[in-house]
Structure formats: structure tokens, C-alpha cells
């Protein structure tokens, strides 16, 4: 009996180790083949810790990185998906340090709690580049550069577009009853876009009727929109802080018999939103159900690559770098929006280029 037990156990053990190592080694043979063209030693090794794959935007962001840091460009990318857990990211950075990478790129899942692990990276002499969300650390020198969006500017841009449109159509500010479906409270995108919105709505004198939290998701956006409709019947503009929320809001508005569009004088409800890379949202903008989308550019790869090139050449790149972002709309009348001395173009989305 005992013999059989031991034999079973040994078999099990073998099976487990086999499992682990087939998994571990499965991707190796293909690598050696591809590696033969370029010598491993010449490659710059970049460790990229990504938040996860929670949205279409995130997937595009990952793609952008993967398409830039290729062997042909002289890089080897180690990609880590943290599945939206900070501990996974901390572990990932420690393993990057152990693997002796040349650069660490971090898209932090939360803004805080990075002091310890970033100082470990600094002690190992590895420069860290932060993308997308910012990190809140006691010492700014813990990271080299930050690449991302200026969310407040995005918010202002969209509000500028709206005000330009209202002027064009002769709609007075008193007639604007606007509700804000906010993103996940406390996230940088929410804070920036809400701030931009608050400043501009005060400036133009719009009637802000409500703020509701939509957590950047379609389902929560739906709930937020139903709550708004229940209390404020006069809402005619909805400022959604991302596309998923906007799609939810549209569904609720249409289910309650309203029409979404820019013609608010004739009872339509105007939807404005952010991101602009969701196919469904682009279709909505092409058929006019969303009036305007502030672009949130996921194409961080080239920016990060140029920073690394500068660092390799011994130059000091600018610490905070914003990606350039424009506006999507289907209204050809407004060609561009001026903000703080810069002109941002409006890309017209219609059935051809959606």
C-alpha cells in the first residue's frame, strides 16, 4: 500500500514539474530562432509593467509599446501584465532589477506607494520612465520622466469646442443644462477632466445641474444617467468623462425616448466624451449621437522610445512630457480649437473614417 502511495506521489511530482517546465520553456525555441539575426548583447532591454487589459484604450497603449520596442529597433521588451494589482507591479519591478534590464517603464495602477521599490531601482542604477498615470512619491528624482495626457487640458478643450459650437448656433448659456458623469473618483483622469469642466463652465456661465459617478464603465454610466434623468428632466448636455460612460448614457437616453445629437434647441441631448479609440464610440460620433470626443492618445511608445534614445546619448530629456491630443467631432464647421496659445485640430469623423 505504502509503495503504491509513494509511486503515486512521485508520478504526481513528475507531472507537476513537467507541467511547469513545458509552460516555462514553451516559448523558448521560437526565440532562439528570431534571436539569431540580431546579437542579444546589443539590444537595449526594457521592462514594461502594464496595468492590465481592462479597456480598449489600454490594449492600444500596450500595442503602441510593443510595436516600438522591437528587435528591429534594437530593443528587447519584457512585458508584464499586472492584472490591475499593485503588488504584481512591485514584484515585476523587483524582477526587472534582478534581470538587469536597462530601463524600466511603469504604467502605475495607482498613484501611490511606489517610494520603496523605485528607490531600489535607483540604487541599481536603472532609470524609470512613468507612463499614463502619475506617481505620487516623496522624491521626484525617483523617476526620470513621465509621459502621459494632460487631462485638465483635455477637459478644457472639449468645453472650448462646446462653447464655440453654442456661439455658432446662437445658443445662450442660460439654455445649457449640463450634467457631468464623472470617472472613478480620485483617478487623475477624473480629477483633471472635472477640473477643466468646472473652470470652463463657470467661465461661460453654464447651468451645471448634477455630478454623478460613473466609474469609467458602461454599466455604471447607465446607472448614473438614469439617476440624472430621474431628478433633472431639463438636462440637455451630458459631459461624460470617458467613452464607455457615454455609450451607457446614450443607451439610457434612447431607452427613455430622447434623441442624442447636437441639436439641443430641438430637444436633442448633446453628449460629449473622452478617449476616442473605442470603435462603438467612433460609430456614434459618425452618426452624430456623440457630438465631440476629446482625444486621449494611447500612443505612448514613440515618446518613451525617444526619451530612451536621449538617455542613451547622455542627454537630459524633459521631465514631464504630454502627448499631443486633438478633438474628434462630426461637425465640419469647427476646424480647430485654441487653447493656451496652441491650436488643436478637430478631426472630422464620418462614415468613411470611423
Amino acid at each position, binding site marked *: *500500500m*505504502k509503495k503504491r*502511495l*509513494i509511486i*503515486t*506521489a512521485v508520478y*504526481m*511530482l513528475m*507531472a*507537476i*514539474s513537467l*507541467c*511547469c*517546465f513545458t*509552460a*516555462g*520553456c*514553451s*516559448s523558448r525555441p521560437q*526565440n532562439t530562432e528570431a534571436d539569431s539575426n540580431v546579437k542579444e548583447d546589443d539590444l537595449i532591454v526594457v*521592462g514594461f509593467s502594464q496595468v492590465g487589459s481592462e479597456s480598449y484604450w489600454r490594449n492600444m497603449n500596450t500595442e503602441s509599446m510593443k510595436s516600438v520596442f522591437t528587435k528591429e529597433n534594437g530593443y528587447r521588451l*519584457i*512585458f*508584464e*501584465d*499586472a*492584472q*490591475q*494589482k*499593485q*503588488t*504584481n507591479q*512591485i*514584484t*515585476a519591478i*523587483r*524582477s526587472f532589477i*534582478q*534581470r*538587469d534590464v*536597462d530601463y524600466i517603464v511603469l504604467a502605475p495602477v*495607482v*498613484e*501611490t*506607494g511606489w*517610494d*520603496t521599490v523605485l*528607490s531600489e531601482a535607483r*540604487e*541599481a*542604477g*536603472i532609470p524609470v520612465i512613468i507612463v499614463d498615470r502619475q506617481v*505620487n*512619491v*516623496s522624491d521626484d528624482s525617483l523617476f526620470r520622466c513621465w509621459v502621459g495626457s494632460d487631462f485638465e487640458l483635455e477637459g478644457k478643450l472639449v468645453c472650448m469646442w462646446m462653447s464655440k459650437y453654442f456661439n455658432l448656433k446662437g445658443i445662450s448659456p442660460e439654455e445649457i443644462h449640463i450634467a457631468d458623469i464623472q470617472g472613478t*473618483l*480620485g483617478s487623475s483622469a477624473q480629477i483633471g477632466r472635472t477640473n477643466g469642466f468646472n473652470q470652463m463652465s463657470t467661465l461661460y456661465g453654464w447651468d451645471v445641474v448634477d455630478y454623478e459617478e460613473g466609474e469609467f464603465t458602461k454599466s455604471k454610466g447607465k446607472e448614473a444617467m438614469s439617476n440624472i434623468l430621474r431628478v433633472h428632466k431639463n438636462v440637455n448636455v451630458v459631459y461624460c468623462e470617458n467613452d464607455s460612460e457615454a455609450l451607457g448614457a446614450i443607451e439610457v437616453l434612447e431607452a427613455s425616448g430622447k434623441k442624442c445629437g447636437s441639436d439641443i434647441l430641438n430637444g436633442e441631448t448633446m453628449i460629449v466624451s473622452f478617449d476616442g479609440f473605442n470603435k462603438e464610440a467612433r460609430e456614434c460620433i459618425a452618426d452624430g449621437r456623440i457630438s465631440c470626443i476629446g482625444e486621449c492618445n494611447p500612443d505612448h511608445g514613440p515618446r518613451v522610445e525617444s526619451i530612451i534614445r536621449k538617455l542613451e546619448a547622455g542627454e537630459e530629456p524633459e521631465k514631464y512630457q504630454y502627448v499631443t491630443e486633438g478633438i474628434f467631432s462630426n461637425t465640419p464647421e469647427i476646424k480647430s480649437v485654441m487653447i493656451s496659445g496652441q491650436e488643436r485640430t478637430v478631426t472630422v469623423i464620418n462614415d468613411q473614417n470611423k
Partner: protein
Amino acid sequence: MKANSKKSFNSNTLLLVITIVLFCVLYVGGCIAYGSKGFTHFQTFLNILITNAGLICVACGMTCVMLTGGIDISVGALIAMDCMMLAVGMEKGIGAVTMVLIVLLVGVVFGVVQGFLVGYLEIQPFIVSMAGMFFCRGMTAVICTDQVSITEKINATFYKWANTKVTIPFGGYVNNKGKYMAPYVRPGVIVAILVLIIIFIMLRYTKFGRSLYAVGGSAQSAAMMGLNVKKIKMGAYMLSSILCSVGGVCYCLNTMAGSVTQALGLEMDAISSAVIGGTLLTGGVGNVIGSFFGVLINGTISSIVKTNGKLASSWPNILTAALLFIFIVIQSIFAAVRARRK
């Protein structure tokens, strides 16, 4: 009689031996396969400890609960609540030591409530601790929905604890930037190792420790022996929650922040560590040393996947679950064999 007990002892040590051998096989395998990718550095091993310091404490508590035949799945959420309390409390200006004591106290209270429900009201442990899990997770959000971080400005003492490096004089290496990297651990690891030793001694040599085994082996015969089964069960849950709070402090030292999603799924890691380490789900058999190796195995798997760098990140979850499955099946085979022998 004596021979019989010796035999069952053997099959239990066999489980522990399997675990330790499996760990060695995995680790050596990792060193051979990824030696060029820094896996052989002593620090890689220490990193497993640093990352899992909190988990080691939790796994010790989980082992104690599982010895009584129960289970506690509230641990991950309790850690999230601990971290959030630490962060928010310190933000409000309460001292680090006071805050740690408060967190431990909350652990005691939470454990007493859970233990009372399981021990005295005889509600299924799983239901109680699942409610506990949702309660803590929601409570974390009630305390604060944002991510709160502990920076140097908020609490210098705690910040200093977290950034203390305990360097080890040997086993360093020079990295490709020419810097000498001395191996180190964080204070959390030392706390975790202390907890491990204390619980090991407690289970071996104290009356309470041995009565945990007795209750798990058979609650009826334990009651006949004159043990207060209800009280012991309650004690086990209290111990689990206290150790979980200790783990929460270690965890917080690693992340320096409180957020609602922290330690999501940690209960699974703790349970699988204990099971892989040879703790029987039916209770009565188990050892914290085994659970410690269980944690190390989980850590090694995720380390291997991370070092490989080309595998999907969901692999550690799947492999851990697969290991849990295999060990549960081994356990049930052992149980069936034992039952047949009787």
C-alpha cells in the same frame, strides 16, 4: 495502536517531503532554465520572501484555522481593511505605533466575532468568513474609496520602517551598470519569520496548540477529553485574524498604501499554500513549516513566470490552482486509503 499512529505519521510527513522536494525541484529548475536572466541571484529568493512576508503570516493563521477543520476566506479583505486603516489613520496624524496597535485590536475583535459565529452558533465557517470577506472589502471602501498612500510627510516613522534595508553580508553580485548589489530583506520578512517560529513552537509545545489538532482530528473525542471545543475554535479564528493583521502591517510596509482592491485573492494563495504544505482540509493534520514552503512554491512559480517574461500573466493563477487541485486529490486518495485500512 502504536504502529498505526506511526503509519499515519508517515503518510503525513510524506506530504511535507513532497512539498519540500517540489520546492527544490522548481527552484533548481528555475536556476538552470533562467540562470542567465538573474534567477540564480540570492536576491531573487529574498524577493520572494519580501513580496510574500504578509502572506507567510496569513498562511500561519490559516493553518491554525484549517487544523480545526475550518477555513477563513476573509483574510485578503481584512488585509485591505488593515492597510486602509493604517493609511487613513496616519493621514489623520495618529502615530505609527498606536495605529499598528489599533489594527491588531481590530483583528482581535473581528476574529472574536467570526470565532463566536463559527464556534458558538455553529454556522458554517465558509459562510461566516465569506460574509466577513465582503464586510471587510466594503468597509475598506466605507473608510475611504480613494487610494491613500503613506508618504514620508504623513508618517516619518512608518516610512523609515518600510525603507529600512537589512542587508546580508554575503551573496551579492555586480550588475551590468557596475553597481554592487548587496542582498537585503525588509523588516516585514523578519516579522514574518518570527511569526513562523512562534506559531511553530505554539503548535508543538503549548496546550492550546495541541488542542487545535485534537479538535480538528475529532471534535467529539476532543469534547470527551474535556476540551472546550467552542472556545478553542473561537481561539483559532481569533489567532487567524490577529496574524492576518500582523500580515496586513507587513503587507502595508511593502505597498505603503491603502486601496480597496489590495490583496484581492490573497485568501486563495493562503489556502493553497497551507494545502500544498500538507495541511488536511478535514483538519487535524498540518504544520506551519509546510505552509511556509507552500508560500515559497507559489512565489517561485510566479517568479519563474515573471523571469520568463513571455508568458501570459494569468499563468501563476492557473498553476497555483492546478497545484491546489493535485494536492487536494492526493489528500483525498490518502483519506480513502486510510478509511479502507480502518
